[in-house]
Protein backbone atom coordinates (compact mmCIF):
# COMPACT_ATOMS: atom_id res chain seq x y z
CA UNK A 1 0.00 0.00 0.00
CA UNK A 2 1.12 3.51 -0.69
CA UNK A 3 2.39 6.35 1.42
CA UNK A 4 0.97 9.87 1.24
CA UNK A 5 3.44 12.69 1.82
CA UNK A 6 2.34 16.27 2.32
CA UNK A 7 4.65 18.68 0.49
CA UNK A 8 5.88 21.91 2.06
CA UNK A 9 6.21 24.82 -0.34
CA UNK A 10 5.57 28.54 -0.70
CA UNK A 11 3.14 28.16 -3.64
CA UNK A 12 5.88 28.82 -6.17
CA UNK A 13 8.74 26.60 -4.98
CA UNK A 14 9.14 23.36 -3.09
CA UNK A 15 10.83 23.69 0.32
CA UNK A 16 14.05 21.65 0.30
CA UNK A 17 13.16 19.54 3.37
CA UNK A 18 10.33 17.92 1.41
CA UNK A 19 13.07 16.12 -0.56
CA UNK A 20 14.46 14.65 2.68
CA UNK A 21 10.95 13.59 3.69
CA UNK A 22 10.48 11.92 0.28
CA UNK A 23 13.59 9.81 0.93
CA UNK A 24 12.21 8.77 4.32
CA UNK A 25 8.79 8.01 2.83
CA UNK A 26 10.39 5.81 0.17
CA UNK A 27 12.00 3.74 2.94
CA UNK A 28 8.52 3.06 4.35
CA UNK A 29 7.03 2.12 0.98
CA UNK A 30 8.25 2.54 -2.58
CA UNK A 31 4.90 3.86 -3.81
CA UNK A 32 5.26 7.49 -2.69
CA UNK A 33 2.40 9.86 -3.55
CA UNK A 34 2.81 13.54 -2.78
CA UNK A 35 -0.02 15.93 -1.96
CA UNK A 36 0.61 19.49 -3.10
CA UNK A 37 -2.06 21.74 -1.59
CA UNK A 38 -1.80 25.45 -2.18
CA UNK A 39 -2.97 28.40 -4.22
CA UNK A 40 -1.71 28.75 -7.79
CA UNK A 41 0.95 26.20 -7.03
CA UNK A 42 1.23 24.46 -10.41
CA UNK A 43 4.98 25.09 -10.51
CA UNK A 44 5.39 23.15 -7.31
CA UNK A 45 3.53 20.16 -8.77
CA UNK A 46 5.96 20.15 -11.70
CA UNK A 47 8.92 20.26 -9.36
CA UNK A 48 7.55 17.35 -7.32
CA UNK A 49 6.64 15.32 -10.43
CA UNK A 50 10.25 15.42 -11.59
CA UNK A 51 11.54 13.79 -8.39
CA UNK A 52 12.25 10.18 -9.46
CA UNK A 53 11.16 8.66 -6.11
CA UNK A 54 7.69 10.18 -6.49
CA UNK A 55 5.14 7.90 -8.19
CA UNK A 56 2.14 10.22 -8.22
CA UNK A 57 1.33 13.85 -7.43
CA UNK A 58 -2.04 14.92 -6.03
CA UNK A 59 -2.69 18.57 -6.70
CA UNK A 60 -5.31 20.53 -4.81
CA UNK A 61 -5.49 24.21 -5.71
CA UNK A 62 -7.62 26.60 -3.68
CA UNK A 63 -7.12 29.99 -2.00
CA UNK A 64 -8.02 28.21 1.26
CA UNK A 65 -4.66 26.44 1.23
CA UNK A 66 -2.52 29.44 0.41
CA UNK A 67 -1.19 29.88 3.94
CA UNK A 68 -1.37 26.26 5.13
CA UNK A 69 -3.70 27.10 7.99
CA UNK A 70 -3.99 23.76 9.79
CA UNK A 71 -7.76 24.14 10.26
CA UNK A 72 -8.06 24.18 6.46
CA UNK A 73 -5.26 21.81 5.47
CA UNK A 74 -5.93 18.99 7.96
CA UNK A 75 -9.43 18.08 6.65
CA UNK A 76 -8.04 17.78 3.11
CA UNK A 77 -5.18 15.56 4.26
CA UNK A 78 -7.54 13.50 6.42
CA UNK A 79 -9.87 12.85 3.48
CA UNK A 80 -7.03 12.11 1.06
CA UNK A 81 -5.49 9.71 3.61
CA UNK A 82 -8.45 7.30 3.23
CA UNK A 83 -6.66 5.36 0.51
CA UNK A 84 -3.25 5.25 2.19
CA UNK A 85 -1.50 3.25 4.89
CA UNK A 86 0.88 6.03 5.91
CA UNK A 87 0.63 9.81 6.05
CA UNK A 88 3.96 11.57 6.42
CA UNK A 89 5.36 15.10 6.58
CA UNK A 90 8.48 16.89 7.78
CA UNK A 91 8.84 17.37 11.54
CA UNK A 92 9.34 21.12 11.28
CA UNK A 93 6.94 23.92 12.15
CA UNK A 94 4.95 23.04 8.98
CA UNK A 95 4.39 19.35 9.72
CA UNK A 96 4.17 19.73 13.48
CA UNK A 97 1.33 22.20 13.05
CA UNK A 98 -1.15 20.16 11.02
CA UNK A 99 -0.21 16.47 11.35
CA UNK A 100 -1.55 15.92 14.90
CA UNK A 101 -4.91 17.29 13.70
CA UNK A 102 -4.95 14.65 10.97
CA UNK A 103 -3.95 11.92 13.44
CA UNK A 104 -6.67 12.97 15.89
CA UNK A 105 -9.31 13.04 13.16
CA UNK A 106 -8.31 9.52 12.11
CA UNK A 107 -7.96 8.36 15.76
CA UNK A 108 -4.30 7.52 15.25
CA UNK A 109 -1.44 7.87 17.70
CA UNK A 110 1.14 9.86 15.77
CA UNK A 111 4.83 8.92 15.66
CA UNK A 112 6.73 12.22 15.80
CA UNK A 113 10.15 13.21 14.54
CA UNK A 114 11.57 9.87 13.39
CA UNK A 115 15.25 9.57 12.53
CA UNK A 116 15.15 6.04 11.10
CA UNK A 117 12.70 3.71 9.42
CA UNK A 118 13.29 0.17 10.74
CA UNK A 119 10.24 -1.31 9.01
CA UNK A 120 6.91 0.08 7.74
CA UNK A 121 5.56 0.06 11.31
CA UNK A 122 8.72 0.46 13.40
CA UNK A 123 10.73 3.63 13.75
CA UNK A 124 13.51 5.18 15.83
CA UNK A 125 12.92 8.59 17.37
CA UNK A 126 14.89 10.72 19.81
CA UNK A 127 13.36 11.51 23.22
CA UNK A 128 14.60 13.65 26.12
CA UNK A 129 16.28 16.15 23.80
CA UNK A 130 18.08 13.38 21.93
CA UNK A 131 19.63 11.92 25.09
CA UNK A 132 17.85 8.65 24.38
CA UNK A 133 16.67 6.91 21.23
CA UNK A 134 13.38 5.03 21.40
CA UNK A 135 12.47 2.25 18.99
CA UNK A 136 8.69 2.32 18.66
CA UNK A 137 6.17 0.18 16.83
CA UNK A 138 2.87 1.68 15.77
CA UNK A 139 -0.04 -0.73 16.18
CA UNK A 140 -2.54 1.58 14.51
CA UNK A 141 -3.86 0.31 11.18
CA UNK A 142 -2.94 3.55 9.48
CA UNK A 143 0.11 5.53 10.57
CA UNK A 144 0.80 9.24 10.88
CA UNK A 145 4.52 9.93 10.95
CA UNK A 146 6.62 13.09 10.98
CA UNK A 147 10.20 12.92 9.80
CA UNK A 148 13.28 14.71 11.08
CA UNK A 149 14.54 16.04 7.74
CA UNK A 150 18.22 16.27 8.66
CA UNK A 151 18.33 12.54 9.40
CA UNK A 152 17.60 11.62 5.78
CA UNK A 153 19.42 12.58 2.58
CA UNK A 154 17.50 14.74 0.12
CA UNK A 155 15.96 12.84 -2.80
CA UNK A 156 17.28 13.34 -6.34
CA UNK A 157 15.42 16.30 -7.87
CA UNK A 158 15.28 15.53 -11.55
CA UNK A 159 14.71 12.68 -13.95
CA UNK A 160 11.24 11.59 -12.90
CA UNK A 161 7.90 12.25 -14.57
CA UNK A 162 5.16 11.33 -12.15
CA UNK A 163 1.52 11.68 -13.11
CA UNK A 164 -0.25 14.73 -11.66
CA UNK A 165 -3.90 14.20 -10.61
CA UNK A 166 -6.07 17.15 -9.65
CA UNK A 167 -8.18 16.60 -6.56
CA UNK A 168 -11.12 18.55 -5.14
CA UNK A 169 -10.79 20.91 -2.20
CA UNK A 170 -12.90 20.17 0.87
CA UNK A 171 -14.97 22.47 3.08
CA UNK A 172 -13.07 24.67 5.51
CA UNK A 173 -14.31 25.80 8.94
CA UNK A 174 -13.43 29.52 8.55
CA UNK A 175 -12.28 29.77 12.15
CA UNK A 176 -8.79 31.09 11.54
CA UNK A 177 -7.27 33.87 9.52
CA UNK A 178 -3.75 34.41 8.26
CA UNK A 179 -2.54 37.98 8.77
CA UNK A 180 1.14 38.17 7.89
CA UNK A 181 4.45 36.37 7.79
CA UNK A 182 7.71 38.12 8.62
CA UNK A 183 10.49 36.11 7.06
CA UNK A 184 14.09 36.89 7.71
CA UNK A 185 15.66 37.42 4.31
CA UNK A 186 19.26 36.43 4.03
CA UNK A 187 21.85 35.89 1.33
CA UNK A 188 23.43 33.18 3.46
CA UNK A 189 22.65 29.46 3.11
CA UNK A 190 19.64 28.11 5.01
CA UNK A 191 20.41 27.01 8.54
CA UNK A 192 18.83 23.58 8.12
CA UNK A 193 20.79 22.61 5.02
CA UNK A 194 24.06 24.58 5.25
CA UNK A 195 27.39 22.70 5.04
CA UNK A 196 28.87 24.94 7.73
CA UNK A 197 27.08 26.62 10.64
CA UNK A 198 28.62 29.30 12.87
CA UNK A 199 26.61 29.85 16.05
CA UNK A 200 26.83 32.45 18.79
CA UNK A 201 25.61 32.37 22.36
CA UNK A 202 25.27 34.62 25.34
CA UNK A 203 29.05 35.05 25.36
CA UNK A 204 28.64 37.48 22.45
CA UNK A 205 27.15 39.95 24.96
CA UNK A 206 25.20 42.00 22.41
CA UNK A 207 23.48 41.96 19.04
CA UNK A 208 26.16 44.26 17.57
CA UNK A 209 28.86 41.77 18.52
CA UNK A 210 27.13 39.14 16.39
CA UNK A 211 28.96 40.81 13.52
CA UNK A 212 32.00 38.81 14.65
CA UNK A 213 29.94 35.67 13.92
CA UNK A 214 28.45 36.87 10.64
CA UNK A 215 31.86 37.95 9.32
CA UNK A 216 33.16 34.41 9.78
CA UNK A 217 29.95 32.93 8.39
CA UNK A 218 30.28 35.06 5.26
CA UNK A 219 33.90 34.06 4.84
CA UNK A 220 32.97 30.37 5.08
CA UNK A 221 29.70 30.67 3.16
CA UNK A 222 28.05 29.38 6.31
CA UNK A 223 24.66 29.80 7.96
CA UNK A 224 24.34 31.67 11.25
CA UNK A 225 22.93 29.89 14.29
CA UNK A 226 22.34 30.89 17.88
CA UNK A 227 21.64 29.46 21.31
CA UNK A 228 18.30 30.07 22.97
CA UNK A 229 20.03 32.39 25.43
CA UNK A 230 21.20 34.63 22.57
CA UNK A 231 17.72 34.70 21.01
CA UNK A 232 16.03 35.36 24.38
CA UNK A 233 18.47 38.21 25.00
CA UNK A 234 17.39 39.74 21.67
CA UNK A 235 20.82 39.48 19.99
CA UNK A 236 19.31 37.72 16.96
CA UNK A 237 15.90 36.59 15.64
CA UNK A 238 14.21 33.30 16.61
CA UNK A 239 14.64 31.63 13.21
CA UNK A 240 18.37 31.23 14.03
CA UNK A 241 17.80 29.16 17.16
CA UNK A 242 19.43 25.73 17.24
CA UNK A 243 18.26 23.24 19.84
CA UNK A 244 15.56 20.98 21.24
CA UNK A 245 12.82 23.48 20.55
CA UNK A 246 14.58 25.32 17.73
CA UNK A 247 16.16 23.81 14.65
CA UNK A 248 18.14 20.62 14.41
CA UNK A 249 21.22 20.96 12.22
CA UNK A 250 23.68 18.36 10.97
CA UNK A 251 26.34 20.30 9.06
CA UNK A 252 29.83 19.07 8.15
CA UNK A 253 31.22 21.75 10.45
CA UNK A 254 29.51 23.39 13.42
CA UNK A 255 31.35 26.20 15.18
CA UNK A 256 29.90 27.10 18.60
CA UNK A 257 31.14 30.42 19.93
CA UNK A 258 30.38 31.67 23.42
CA UNK A 259 27.84 28.86 23.89
CA UNK A 260 28.08 26.93 27.15
CA UNK A 261 26.31 23.85 25.75
CA UNK A 262 23.08 23.32 27.67
CA UNK A 263 21.41 19.93 27.05
CA UNK A 264 18.75 21.74 25.01
CA UNK A 265 21.33 23.28 22.66
CA UNK A 266 23.31 20.06 22.26
CA UNK A 267 20.06 18.37 21.14
CA UNK A 268 20.07 20.56 18.05
CA UNK A 269 23.68 20.15 16.90
CA UNK A 270 25.48 17.18 18.40
CA UNK A 271 25.01 15.03 15.29
CA UNK A 272 27.15 17.49 13.30
CA UNK A 273 30.15 15.81 11.67
CA UNK A 274 32.83 18.11 13.11
CA UNK A 275 32.17 20.36 16.11
CA UNK A 276 34.37 23.27 17.14
CA UNK A 277 33.85 25.06 20.45
CA UNK A 278 35.32 28.43 21.31
CA UNK A 279 34.67 29.40 24.91
CA UNK A 280 36.62 31.10 27.68
CA UNK A 281 35.24 28.69 30.28
CA UNK A 282 37.31 25.51 29.97
CA UNK A 283 34.70 23.60 31.97
CA UNK A 284 31.79 24.49 29.65
CA UNK A 285 29.80 21.36 28.67
CA UNK A 286 30.09 22.27 24.98
CA UNK A 287 33.69 20.96 25.11
CA UNK A 288 32.39 17.45 25.90
CA UNK A 289 30.95 17.16 22.37
CA UNK A 290 33.59 19.22 20.54
CA UNK A 291 36.15 17.59 18.26
CA UNK A 292 38.29 20.69 18.57
CA UNK A 293 38.03 22.96 21.58
CA UNK A 294 39.66 26.34 21.92
CA UNK A 295 39.65 27.82 25.39
CA UNK A 296 39.92 31.52 24.62
CA UNK A 297 38.27 34.91 24.82
CA UNK A 298 36.06 35.02 21.73
CA UNK A 299 36.61 38.74 21.26
CA UNK A 300 40.29 38.00 20.62
CA UNK A 301 39.90 34.61 18.98
CA UNK A 302 37.28 35.50 16.35
CA UNK A 303 39.26 38.32 14.66
CA UNK A 304 42.30 36.02 14.64
CA UNK A 305 40.20 33.20 13.22
CA UNK A 306 38.98 35.48 10.43
CA UNK A 307 42.55 36.57 9.68
CA UNK A 308 43.69 32.92 9.48
CA UNK A 309 40.77 32.04 7.21
CA UNK A 310 41.66 34.93 4.94
CA UNK A 311 45.08 33.31 4.46
CA UNK A 312 43.51 30.09 3.19
CA UNK A 313 42.55 29.75 -0.42
CA UNK A 314 40.75 26.43 -0.29
CA UNK A 315 37.40 27.48 1.14
CA UNK A 316 34.57 25.82 -0.76
CA UNK A 317 31.84 28.02 -2.02
Amino acid at each position, binding site marked *: MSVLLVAEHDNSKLKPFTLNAITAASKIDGDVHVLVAGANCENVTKEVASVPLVKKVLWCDSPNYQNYLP*ENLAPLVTKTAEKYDHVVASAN*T*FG*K*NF*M*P*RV*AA*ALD*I*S*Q*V*SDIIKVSSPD*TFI*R*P*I*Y*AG*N*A*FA*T*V*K*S*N*DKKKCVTIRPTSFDPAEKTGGSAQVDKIEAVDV*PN*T*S*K*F*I*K*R*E*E*TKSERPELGTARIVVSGGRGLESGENFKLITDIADK*LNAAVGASRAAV*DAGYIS*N*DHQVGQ*TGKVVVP*DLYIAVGISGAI*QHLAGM*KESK*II*VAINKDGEAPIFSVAD*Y*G*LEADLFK*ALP*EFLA*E*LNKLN*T*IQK
Partner: protein
Amino acid sequence: MKILVAVKRVIDYNVQIRVKEDGSGVHTDNVKMSTNPPDDNAVEESVKLKESGKVKEVVAISIGEDKAQETIRKALAVGADKGIHVKADNYIEPLGIAKILKKIVEKEKPDMVFLGKQAIDDDCNQTGQMLAAMLNWPQATFTSKVNLKEKSVEIVREIDEGLETIEVNLPAVVSCDLRLNEPRFASLPNIMKAKKKPMEQINAKDLGIDLNNRIQQIKVEEPPKRKAGIKVANVAELVSKLKNEAKVL
Protein backbone atom coordinates in the same frame (compact mmCIF):
# COMPACT_ATOMS: atom_id res chain seq x y z
CA MET B 1 -13.71 34.42 30.00
CA LYS B 2 -12.26 31.24 31.35
CA ILE B 3 -8.96 29.51 30.60
CA LEU B 4 -8.08 25.88 31.15
CA VAL B 5 -4.31 25.53 31.37
CA ALA B 6 -2.71 22.10 31.10
CA VAL B 7 0.56 21.34 32.88
CA LYS B 8 2.75 18.24 32.80
CA ARG B 9 5.21 16.97 35.39
CA VAL B 10 8.47 15.98 33.72
CA ILE B 11 12.11 15.32 34.57
CA ASP B 12 13.66 18.72 35.28
CA TYR B 13 15.26 20.29 32.23
CA ASN B 14 18.65 20.50 33.93
CA VAL B 15 18.89 16.79 34.70
CA GLN B 16 21.17 14.66 32.54
CA ILE B 17 18.91 11.67 31.99
CA ARG B 18 20.19 8.10 32.29
CA VAL B 19 18.94 5.27 30.13
CA LYS B 20 18.09 2.02 31.96
CA GLU B 21 20.37 -0.86 31.14
CA ASP B 22 17.49 -3.19 30.29
CA GLY B 23 16.30 -0.81 27.57
CA SER B 24 12.90 -0.27 29.18
CA GLY B 25 13.17 3.51 29.56
CA VAL B 26 15.05 6.10 31.59
CA HIS B 27 15.72 6.30 35.34
CA THR B 28 13.13 8.39 37.16
CA ASP B 29 13.74 7.34 40.78
CA ASN B 30 15.23 10.11 42.91
CA VAL B 31 15.39 12.38 39.89
CA LYS B 32 14.32 16.01 40.22
CA MET B 33 10.94 16.63 38.59
CA SER B 34 9.36 19.95 37.66
CA THR B 35 6.78 21.56 35.41
CA ASN B 36 7.41 21.14 31.69
CA PRO B 37 9.06 24.52 30.84
CA PRO B 38 6.67 25.85 28.17
CA ASP B 39 3.74 24.86 30.42
CA ASP B 40 5.09 27.44 32.88
CA ASN B 41 4.74 30.01 30.08
CA ALA B 42 1.17 28.84 29.51
CA VAL B 43 0.33 29.34 33.20
CA GLU B 44 2.05 32.74 33.27
CA GLU B 45 0.12 33.98 30.23
CA SER B 46 -3.19 32.75 31.64
CA VAL B 47 -2.54 34.53 34.94
CA LYS B 48 -1.47 37.72 33.13
CA LEU B 49 -4.73 37.68 31.15
CA LYS B 50 -6.61 37.29 34.40
CA GLU B 51 -4.73 40.21 35.93
CA SER B 52 -5.59 42.33 32.90
CA GLY B 53 -9.29 41.77 33.68
CA LYS B 54 -10.06 40.06 30.38
CA VAL B 55 -10.18 36.62 31.95
CA LYS B 56 -12.20 35.75 35.05
CA GLU B 57 -11.03 32.29 35.93
CA VAL B 58 -7.97 30.11 35.35
CA VAL B 59 -8.26 26.37 35.93
CA ALA B 60 -5.06 24.30 35.98
CA ILE B 61 -5.17 20.64 35.03
CA SER B 62 -2.60 17.89 35.14
CA ILE B 63 -2.87 14.24 34.21
CA GLY B 64 -0.68 11.66 35.90
CA GLU B 65 0.21 9.99 39.17
CA ASP B 66 -0.51 11.58 42.55
CA LYS B 67 2.61 13.73 42.42
CA ALA B 68 1.14 15.62 39.47
CA GLN B 69 -0.72 17.53 42.18
CA GLU B 70 2.56 19.28 43.05
CA THR B 71 2.64 20.64 39.51
CA ILE B 72 -0.95 21.86 39.86
CA ARG B 73 -0.18 23.47 43.24
CA LYS B 74 2.65 25.36 41.61
CA ALA B 75 0.21 26.78 39.04
CA LEU B 76 -2.19 27.68 41.85
CA ALA B 77 0.63 29.41 43.71
CA VAL B 78 1.29 31.77 40.80
CA GLY B 79 -2.36 32.64 40.33
CA ALA B 80 -4.56 29.85 38.95
CA ASP B 81 -7.88 29.64 40.81
CA LYS B 82 -8.67 25.95 40.84
CA GLY B 83 -6.97 22.65 40.09
CA ILE B 84 -8.10 19.45 38.44
CA HIS B 85 -6.02 16.32 38.87
CA VAL B 86 -6.85 13.47 36.54
CA LYS B 87 -5.23 10.46 38.13
CA ALA B 88 -3.48 8.05 35.81
CA ASP B 89 -0.62 5.83 36.92
CA ASN B 90 0.61 4.67 33.54
CA TYR B 91 2.06 6.59 30.61
CA ILE B 92 -0.65 7.87 28.30
CA GLU B 93 0.13 8.92 24.74
CA PRO B 94 -0.76 12.44 23.54
CA LEU B 95 -3.82 11.00 21.75
CA GLY B 96 -5.19 9.72 25.07
CA ILE B 97 -4.22 12.92 26.91
CA ALA B 98 -6.08 14.96 24.28
CA LYS B 99 -9.16 12.74 24.75
CA ILE B 100 -9.07 13.31 28.52
CA LEU B 101 -8.65 17.07 28.05
CA LYS B 102 -11.60 17.07 25.65
CA LYS B 103 -13.82 15.51 28.35
CA ILE B 104 -12.70 18.14 30.84
CA VAL B 105 -13.26 20.95 28.32
CA GLU B 106 -16.81 19.73 27.74
CA LYS B 107 -17.42 19.93 31.48
CA GLU B 108 -15.55 23.15 32.31
CA LYS B 109 -16.46 25.02 29.11
CA PRO B 110 -13.39 27.27 28.91
CA ASP B 111 -12.99 29.88 26.15
CA MET B 112 -9.37 28.91 25.65
CA VAL B 113 -7.06 26.05 26.48
CA PHE B 114 -3.43 27.04 27.07
CA LEU B 115 -0.58 24.53 27.18
CA GLY B 116 3.11 24.20 26.33
CA LYS B 117 4.00 23.59 22.71
CA GLN B 118 5.90 20.42 23.53
CA ALA B 119 6.81 18.28 26.53
CA ILE B 120 10.55 17.94 27.01
CA ASP B 121 10.35 14.24 27.93
CA ASP B 122 8.68 12.52 24.96
CA ASP B 123 9.21 15.53 22.65
CA CYS B 124 5.99 14.67 20.78
CA ASN B 125 4.50 18.13 20.12
CA GLN B 126 0.99 16.77 19.50
CA THR B 127 -1.43 17.28 22.40
CA GLY B 128 -2.64 20.83 21.71
CA GLN B 129 -3.21 20.24 18.01
CA MET B 130 -5.00 16.94 18.68
CA LEU B 131 -7.25 18.52 21.28
CA ALA B 132 -8.10 21.37 18.90
CA ALA B 133 -8.99 18.88 16.15
CA MET B 134 -11.15 16.77 18.49
CA LEU B 135 -13.06 19.87 19.64
CA ASN B 136 -13.19 21.23 16.10
CA TRP B 137 -11.55 24.41 17.41
CA PRO B 138 -8.86 26.49 15.73
CA GLN B 139 -5.35 26.39 17.14
CA ALA B 140 -2.36 28.64 17.58
CA THR B 141 0.89 26.74 18.01
CA PHE B 142 4.38 28.02 18.98
CA THR B 143 2.81 31.20 20.36
CA SER B 144 5.15 34.03 21.32
CA LYS B 145 2.60 36.87 21.61
CA VAL B 146 -1.06 36.93 22.61
CA ASN B 147 -3.52 39.74 21.91
CA LEU B 148 -6.91 38.71 23.29
CA LYS B 149 -9.93 40.35 21.70
CA GLU B 150 -13.63 39.88 22.41
CA LYS B 151 -14.37 36.97 20.11
CA SER B 152 -10.94 36.07 18.83
CA VAL B 153 -7.29 36.06 19.70
CA GLU B 154 -4.47 37.46 17.59
CA ILE B 155 -1.33 35.40 17.89
CA VAL B 156 2.28 35.79 16.80
CA ARG B 157 3.80 32.36 16.19
CA GLU B 158 7.42 31.32 15.89
CA ILE B 159 7.91 29.42 12.63
CA ASP B 160 11.03 28.14 10.88
CA GLU B 161 11.15 31.14 8.55
CA GLY B 162 10.61 33.78 11.25
CA LEU B 163 7.31 35.01 12.67
CA GLU B 164 3.71 34.54 11.57
CA THR B 165 0.65 36.45 12.74
CA ILE B 166 -2.75 34.77 12.71
CA GLU B 167 -6.14 35.43 14.22
CA VAL B 168 -8.26 32.56 15.49
CA ASN B 169 -11.86 32.61 16.64
CA LEU B 170 -12.72 31.67 20.20
CA PRO B 171 -12.88 29.08 21.59
CA ALA B 172 -9.33 28.09 20.69
CA VAL B 173 -6.31 26.08 21.78
CA VAL B 174 -3.08 28.03 22.30
CA SER B 175 0.26 26.21 22.55
CA CYS B 176 2.95 28.38 24.09
CA ASP B 177 6.57 28.95 23.15
CA LEU B 178 9.31 29.76 25.63
CA ARG B 179 9.60 33.38 24.52
CA LEU B 180 5.95 34.19 25.24
CA ASN B 181 6.76 35.61 28.66
CA GLU B 182 8.97 35.31 31.74
CA PRO B 183 7.29 32.92 34.21
CA ARG B 184 7.20 34.36 37.74
CA PHE B 185 8.24 32.61 40.90
CA ALA B 186 5.66 31.91 43.56
CA SER B 187 6.07 33.83 46.82
CA LEU B 188 5.96 31.90 50.08
CA PRO B 189 2.63 33.42 51.19
CA ASN B 190 1.14 32.47 47.81
CA ILE B 191 2.49 28.94 48.11
CA MET B 192 0.72 28.70 51.49
CA LYS B 193 -2.49 30.16 50.06
CA ALA B 194 -2.36 27.72 47.13
CA LYS B 195 -2.73 24.84 49.56
CA LYS B 196 -6.23 26.06 50.37
CA LYS B 197 -7.36 26.48 46.76
CA PRO B 198 -9.81 23.81 45.51
CA MET B 199 -8.43 20.73 43.76
CA GLU B 200 -10.83 18.36 42.09
CA GLN B 201 -9.76 14.76 41.63
CA ILE B 202 -10.92 12.53 38.83
CA ASN B 203 -9.83 9.03 37.96
CA ALA B 204 -8.83 8.72 34.30
CA LYS B 205 -10.39 5.31 34.03
CA ASP B 206 -13.77 6.68 35.17
CA LEU B 207 -13.98 8.93 32.12
CA GLY B 208 -15.10 6.16 29.79
CA ILE B 209 -12.35 6.73 27.23
CA ASP B 210 -10.21 4.12 25.49
CA LEU B 211 -6.78 4.98 26.87
CA ASN B 212 -4.90 1.97 25.54
CA ASN B 213 -1.63 3.04 23.99
CA ARG B 214 -1.27 2.35 20.28
CA ILE B 215 2.47 2.74 20.15
CA GLN B 216 4.59 0.01 21.62
CA GLN B 217 7.94 1.06 22.97
CA ILE B 218 10.29 -1.72 21.95
CA LYS B 219 13.46 -0.35 23.47
CA VAL B 220 15.16 2.79 24.68
CA GLU B 221 18.88 3.09 24.21
CA GLU B 222 21.65 5.62 24.55
CA PRO B 223 22.51 7.48 21.37
CA PRO B 224 25.96 6.73 19.92
CA LYS B 225 28.58 8.59 21.93
CA ARG B 226 30.83 11.12 20.28
CA LYS B 227 34.52 10.35 20.31
CA ALA B 228 36.35 12.57 22.80
CA GLY B 229 37.90 15.54 21.07
CA ILE B 230 41.03 17.56 21.76
CA LYS B 231 41.80 21.05 22.95
CA VAL B 232 43.87 23.19 20.62
CA ALA B 233 46.33 25.76 21.92
CA ASN B 234 45.50 28.64 19.62
CA VAL B 235 43.61 29.81 16.55
CA ALA B 236 46.39 28.87 14.12
CA GLU B 237 46.36 25.28 15.35
CA LEU B 238 42.57 25.19 15.11
CA VAL B 239 42.58 26.30 11.48
CA SER B 240 45.37 23.90 10.64
CA LYS B 241 43.46 20.96 12.21
CA LEU B 242 40.26 21.90 10.40
CA LYS B 243 42.08 22.10 7.10
CA ASN B 244 44.52 19.20 7.28
CA GLU B 245 42.98 16.72 9.73
CA ALA B 246 39.20 17.21 9.54
CA LYS B 247 39.42 18.50 5.94
CA VAL B 248 36.35 20.69 6.33
CA LEU B 249 37.87 23.97 5.15
